[in-house]
């Protein structure tokens, strides 16, 4: 291409680069959003599953096999959570992608969604667990006293309230994923960071290119945060989760939620 050279200054350079390579950036944005949104949703379900496993109560009445199964399930949940919270996602990405590629032959994009999902799931499990613990134990007892078993109680009484309470933290995971999905460039997922390095490589102007990248990331996270706040407000009023029967729910994560005590 015989184009005029880019202006040497930061702003001029950045504008010039964006003008020429906008589609490459937006392709990255598309993948970044695709990965972070789907991985947050999948991660939420993984988290729900493992948080429920951790909630299993070994009761005196259980027979030996039930006790053994429950103990084993709890152990698996604990190992999963500790391993994926205790190692960097960039390491998980390389290990899992290359480790499983010979067996299932997945593409970087699919691997990216799976890795971020599994990673998010471990954090979600802890978020949901905290959400569950914020629910007054009277809710559990009332449900059990109506004859609902542990599973019914979790699904229809505890989790709907816990998820509502944990919503700010769940939404925050989405914002984190928008940023942290950048590490997937190590396995060649063409998300925003990966695309930016490609552009920077072509024009050989890292500073100017990554100003654009930073601004795009900021726009994405800022917009998401504002949208999540809106949803949060919706959840809080007037059907908000407040009431004498679960007063501790008002104080989840150390801040007083709007809506107050009824």
């Amino acid at each position, binding site marked *: 291409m015989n184009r005029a050279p880019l202006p040497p200054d930061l702003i001029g350079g950045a504008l010039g680069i964006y003008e020429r390579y906008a589609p490459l950036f937006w392709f990255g944005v598309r993948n970044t959003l695709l990965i972070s949104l789907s991985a947050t949703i999948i991660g939420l379900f993984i988290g729900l599953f493992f948080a429920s496993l951790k909630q299993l109560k070994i009761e005196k009445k259980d027979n030996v096999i039930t006790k053994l199964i429950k103990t084993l399930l709890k152990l698996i949940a604990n190992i999963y959570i500790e391993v994926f919270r205790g190692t960097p996602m960039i390491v998980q990405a390389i290990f899992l992608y290359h480790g499983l590629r010979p067996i299932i032959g997945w593409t970087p994009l699919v691997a990216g969604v799976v890795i971020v999902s599994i990673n998010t799931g471990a954090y979600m499990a802890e978020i949901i667990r905290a959400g569950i613990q914020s629910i007054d134990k009277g809710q559990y007892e009332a449900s059990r*006293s109506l004859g*609902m*078993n542990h599973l019914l109680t979790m699904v229809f009484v505890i989790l709907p309230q816990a998820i509502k309470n944990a919503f700010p933290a769940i939404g925050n995971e989405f914002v984190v994923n928008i940023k942290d999905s950048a590490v997937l460039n190590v396995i060649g997922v063409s998300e925003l960071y990966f695309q930016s390095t490609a552009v920077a490589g072509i024009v050989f102007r890292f500073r100017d290119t990554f100003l654009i990248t930073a601004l795009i990331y900021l726009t994405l996270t800022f917009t998401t945060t504002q949208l999540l706040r809106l949803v949060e407000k919706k959840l809080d009023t007037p059907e908000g989760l407040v009431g004498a*029967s679960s007063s501790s729910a008002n104080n989840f994560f150390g801040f007083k939620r709007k809506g107050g005590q009824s």
Partner: protein
Amino acid sequence: MIEIKNLSKSFGQQEVLHDISMNVSEGEVVALIGASGSGKSTLLRCVNLLETPNSGKIIVDDVDITASFNIDEYRAKVGMIFQSFNLFPHLNVLKNCTLAQMKVLKRSAKESEAIALENLNKVGMLDFAQMNVTKLSGGQKQRVAIARALCMNPKILLLDEPTSALDPELVGEVLDVIKTLAQSGLTMLIVTHEMSFAKDVADKVVFMDQGVVVEAAHPSILFNNPTQERTKAFLSRIVHG
């Protein structure tokens, strides 16, 4: 109907119930009274297996509930009313009453709703069926909680200080509902601090102190001519206040 035999319960080192034995016959209303920490609530929670006894037996309708059996099936037959109501805040009044009916008794949505409305009507909360439970007053919440329990057609109703969390002016409306239920022949076990209420509705009053049953008798006897020193001391404290 309920036969409690040599029941003991400890939390760690602390023994809260010591060798309790008592009977509740069908249709009988039994009031458990005593100072805080005397073990009344724990005894009630043992009957619903919210607490597991360390030793002793609880036999309900000839079945030993402390032995292995279907706990959920049993609980569906035994209603429990809590001091703090424990309504489900994410559901409205009607859905609070229909959830367990549909999930446990496998009733259809339509049938559950009809039964819920009937019971809400019984406790005077029919007009509030579509309300958010968090908007209700304490007395209204407790009446909904009673309706919710009644929807399961319980054979026994356990009430754990049903009016203790209420403002004084709201106590009456809840006690009235419980009175009506008592007269309808439902077997009830009530932990209460409302002595005049216990006098009114109970067929038998059980006075507990430090984890043991001190005295059990018809209210006219227990309140007027208690035989035990500890009962006398407790009642004089209540009266003189």
